[in-house]
């Protein structure tokens, strides 16, 4: 018998190669080769100088502030020292710090009034093409006032078979959902923008409970394919080929920032 601790400390599996590809893509965007990282490239000595001088600046600022109230300026030499060191800082910064160029592709944030598509589960119990998705690594379901019966894909359909075998899409629920918890949201792990009017958009249910809903979606190379600071369930994967995408959904609830991250697959058949 082994202890839990020992077993959990074993590491037998390596991550898939995708991880390096995504990482490398992100590095290309955020830390391009050829340009040194601004902060990390400064030697420890210079950083210490900057740190100390910044500290002096703060003190100097406090001193100057204090001096404003005290007419006897006997500490004048200190002021000069502070001012001189300020010049030095500027010198250091100009010569050493190179701002990394961040290239972020931004799809225009689509400004639309509250879209009807958000509500179809409530008002119009139309059959969804995909069973209610409860994936273990997703946050939970939306607060919907009435119980809605959701139809499930026929088991022998091609799409159903594909979904059943897809490693990303396991743990699909049978359609029974608990609508009783008002603070939860439901994020799909799949949508099908094929123009049939069903699941054509990436819809986060329960979105309207939260403020400042922000969404960032990246592709498998780490590039941002969609971004919105006020997401209104309008992303339809435009210009995105089929495949897995990675989202970061941030929102405020009761003044506290929350985040939900995960994967979503786009299928266009």
């Amino acid at each position, binding site marked *: *018998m*082994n*202890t*839990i*601790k020992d*077993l*959990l*400390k*074993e*590491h*037998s*599996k*390596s*991550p*898939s190669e*995708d*991880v*390096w590809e*995504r*990482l*490398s893509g*992100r*590095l290309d965007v*955020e*830390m*391009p*080769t*050829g*340009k*040194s*990282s601004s*902060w*990390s*490239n*400064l030697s*420890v000595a210079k950083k210490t100088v900057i740190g100390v001088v910044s500290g002096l600046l703060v003190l100097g600022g406090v001193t100057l502030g204090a001096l404003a109230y005290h007419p006897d300026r006997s500490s004048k030499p200190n002021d000069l020292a502070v001012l001189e060191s300020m010049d030095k800082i500027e010198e250091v910064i100009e010569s050493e710090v190179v701002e990394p160029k961040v290239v972020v592709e931004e799809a225009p944030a689509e400004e639309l009034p509250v879209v009807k598509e958000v509500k179809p589960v409530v008002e119009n119990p139309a059959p969804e093409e995909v069973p209610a998705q409860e994936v*273990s*690594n997703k*946050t*939970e379901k939306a607060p919907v006032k009435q119980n809605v019966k959701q139809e499930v894909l026929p088991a022998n359909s091609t799409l159903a078979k594909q979904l059943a075998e897809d*490693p*990303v899409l396991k743990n699909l629920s049978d359609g029974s959902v608990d609508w009783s*918890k008002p*603070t*939860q*949201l439901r994020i799909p792990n799949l949508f099908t923008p094929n123009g049939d009017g069903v699941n054509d958009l990436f819809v986060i249910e329960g979105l309207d409970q939260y403020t400042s809903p922000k969404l960032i979606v990246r592709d498998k190379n780490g590039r941002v394919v969609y971004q919105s600071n006020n997401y209104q369930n309008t992303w339809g994967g435009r210009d995105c080929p089929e495949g897995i995408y*990675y989202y970061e959904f941030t*929102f405020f*609830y009761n003044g*506290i*920032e*929350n*985040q*939900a*991250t*995960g*994967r979503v697959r786009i299928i266009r058949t």
Partner: protein
Amino acid sequence: MKEIDSDIEKIIAGCLKNDRLSQRQLYDRYSSELFGLCRRYSSSDEEAEDLLMEGFMQIFKNLGSYQHKSAFGTWVTSVMLNFAISHFRNSSRFRMEILTENMELLENVDEEEQIRTNLVADQLLQLIQQMPEAMRVVFNLKAVDEYSFTEIAQMLDKKENAVRNSYMRGRKWLMERLKLEKD
């Protein structure tokens, strides 16, 4: 992890220059071990990979602040763990769980007593991944990474009582399922 110092120094120097090859080498050296960490905190291997990837971005971005005061492997692990913790702290699901936990104290289980099992590592890991999120994070921090309840309460910005409860609940959850697995 055994490290040859000059090797590591070269890799670090290369990474600071954003040399992709050095970054790849650093990644290759630590990704397996760190993936293990990510797997036991996450609810699936996919989530673990996402966490691993973002965590490595932090490692590369903060590499300049490594002061050689600890072994490099230790530093790398702590960056990843800190990143995982802040990821879960901000996670809406984690928050919802802690919020809905009721606060009554469970009977006092000896927190030091080691749980043993006949399961192999991967089986146990899959079980752990099924634990509710907040419970799983607390369980890992206490039982595997061996932080104190006080430290865990600070890291997660929770009351110490809530953390203790979460841990006791986690042990109970696990032991019930280990008993089932035995049959």
